[in-house]
């Protein structure tokens, strides 16, 4: 009961910080003007072209692929693994048929995640250039994600947790009715780390997730000659046409 209470409070707090913090940052990005047209060219000349460019960036990591095949391989495996694992975890919240359908893929995606993360971590230690630019938080972030994925896989393959009970706990959280969280050390650790990840998300480099969509070099249409573009603060300068 004690741990149920703790995790209930933690989850509510984490959700508020995660959603609130992210909303604050997204609002900040949205409201900060981009005074000049700076797409990295060649760039699309239409809005649909920009959507296609962005889609390629966030699904196949196009620029990264051009840049470095190893980072791409590890980074892409991690993110795709994370995506599938996340989708698999939807079963704790909803009861949709496609979620049931992807369950088997979700399991192996956990291994894909760990493969990718380990590769990224190894590069951080082994490649001199990347070691040079790494701070403690850069290592810890990867270790945290590996630990989350690892504890999850352990619960699947070694020390089973009662999925039904966890589903009940989550439904309890969502409906403000409380259900006991099964007493399980691995589960506690897993959830604690996930809560931690949610809390640091809006304060860390994890902001690259919303950030990429606001990157002017990637999201601007290449049409400066055709369309007049000026930021509100810059327009004020223009009152004196010299």
């Amino acid at each position, binding site marked *: 009961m004690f741990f149920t209470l703790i995790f209930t409070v933690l989850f509510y707090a984490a959700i508020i910080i995660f959603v609130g913090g992210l909303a604050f*940052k997204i609002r*900040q*990005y949205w409201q*900060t*003007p*981009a*005074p*000049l*047209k*700076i797409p*990295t*060219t*060649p760039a699309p*000349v239409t809005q649909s072209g920009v959507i296609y460019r962005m889609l390629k*960036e966030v699904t196949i*990591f196009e*620029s*990264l692929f*051009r*840049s*470095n095949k190893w*980072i791409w391989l590890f*980074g892409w495996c991690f993110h795709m693994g994370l995506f599938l694992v996340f989708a698999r975890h939807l079963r704790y919240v909803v009861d949709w048929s496609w979620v049931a359908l992807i369950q088997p893929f979700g399991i192996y995606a956990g291994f894909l995640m760990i493969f990718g993360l380990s590769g*990224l971590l190894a*590069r951080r230690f082994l*490649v*001199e*250039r*990347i070691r*040079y*630019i790494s*701070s*403690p*938080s*850069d290592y*810890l972030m990867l270790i945290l994600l590996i630990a989350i994925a690892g504890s999850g896989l352990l619960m699947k393959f070694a020390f089973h947790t009662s999925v039904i009970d966890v589903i009940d706990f989550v439904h309890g959280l969502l409906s403000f009715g409380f259900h006991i969280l099964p007493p399980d050390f691995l589960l506690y650790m897993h959830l604690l780390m996930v809560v931690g990840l949610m809390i*640091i998300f809006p*304060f*860390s*480099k994890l*902001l*690259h997730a919303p*950030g*990429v969509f606001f*990157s*002017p*070099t*990637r999201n601007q249409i*290449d049409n*400066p*000659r*055709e369309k*007049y573009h*000026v*930021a509100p*603060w*810059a327009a004020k*300068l223009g009152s004196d*046409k*010299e």
Partner: protein
Amino acid sequence: MAKVEIEVPECPEYPIIPRLKEGMMAHSKPYIAVEKFQHELGFPGELPENWQEAALDKMQDLLGKYRSFQVYLDSCVKCGACTDKCHYFLGTADPKNMPVARQDLLRKVYRRYFTLAGKYFPKLVGAVDLTKDVLDDWYSYYHQCSQCRRCSVFCPYGIDTAEISMAAREILASVGMGQKYCNEIIGKVFKIGNNLGLPEPALKDTLEGLEEDIFDETNVAVRLPLDEKGADILLITPSADFFAEPHVDGLMGYAKVFHESGVSWTISSYASEGANFGMFIGSYENMRRVAMRIRKAAEDLGVKRIMFGECGHAWRVGYSFLNTLAGPFDFLDPNYPVPQHICEFTYDLIQKDKLVFDKSENDEHVVTFHDSCNVARATRMGPKPGGQFTIPRAILKTVCNNYVDMDADTIHDATFCCGGGGGLLTDDLMEIRVKGAMPRMTALKKIVDEDKVTTLVAICAICKSQFIKTLPYYGMQMYMMHSLHQLVSSALVMQRLTEPADDSESESSDD
């Protein structure tokens, strides 16, 4: 030409990433702008007492004004994709010349003062206080970035170090640490109209001299008009085109193309400069002031179109920013984009079969084209993306029989900067310029050896000036360097020999 003694990096046979040599270029820094040059641009003359506060205030101000600055400081995950992409890193091995490390110089301070993590756990996230040492490091390493945007091409989030380095330079200038070279030049533009400080009478003389040169060579009275009201086209070109070699041969090339096209054109003594150094120092205000001169010149002269000559940074400010800074240009002819590039103009005439060439005039050349960084990654030519690559090459292939490209990963949007862009084309930065040229020189040397390339063509005044200096350091001839319209000019067969309208015009303005 006197060569400064510099340890020139060796050109590797295949691309290698150097081992890190910390502090290799920590000594490199340009002269600081003296009080007079700072004041002319609205910056303080020296480091104020409360410089730290002032610098952080400026950073806060920029964070609210530039989405790029805010998003890019937050979004980097330190993946390392950019670490081997900067020509200055490849040429110097100094780790602070890796794009991410260069950004981090500022990002560490941003984290310390503007993020929760950096305020409470500075060691954990690598946040540092803004000390004088940090400020000096900024001054040194943000003047080892040519704002060429190669890193931004390869970054998974498109983080553009140029944006960070422009912001850093603006912060530096706002605490009295402006760069002499750039700020002095911008002051000259405000006073005289061009970077060189070439006044109207001297400019007039120069242009008349060029008219004579062309007449001696071709027997055709080709004009280079100055301040001619009612001309169709206002040509904005880098002032280096008025006197430097091979720039000036390019200018004569534009004049001949204009002559053949039959369109009237003029240069303005008030806006006799294409390159807008306001961009280099990251100052929107100063960039705008320079750009407004072009608008005023266009209005005063009553032209219908604005066209830019061969200049990479000019074309970025022209193509991408001019409309924003000095537009909208609704008083110009709406049938043409504002502005146009001289290459777009020449290419269009070629497409319409209006120019006659004798390609064999250029048979002594085996030509390659260097994509200038700002043209390649920050602009376009023609209606289609990538026109900035295809149009200059199409022109070259029309006027030359022998054309060879450098390696695919060193051209188009992966091109290497010449090493002198972004406000670094000054003698006090010669070492970083020579070392930064290494990747481009390596790719060039390869086709000089393998394909007997004799001629390097660029459409940027900075590239041309920089290569003339650096080619000899890498065992190549400075005479390899050519302007694109220089080759156009050699092959152009003048058809409009006696055009009555032209003759009368030239007579009336000659007195």
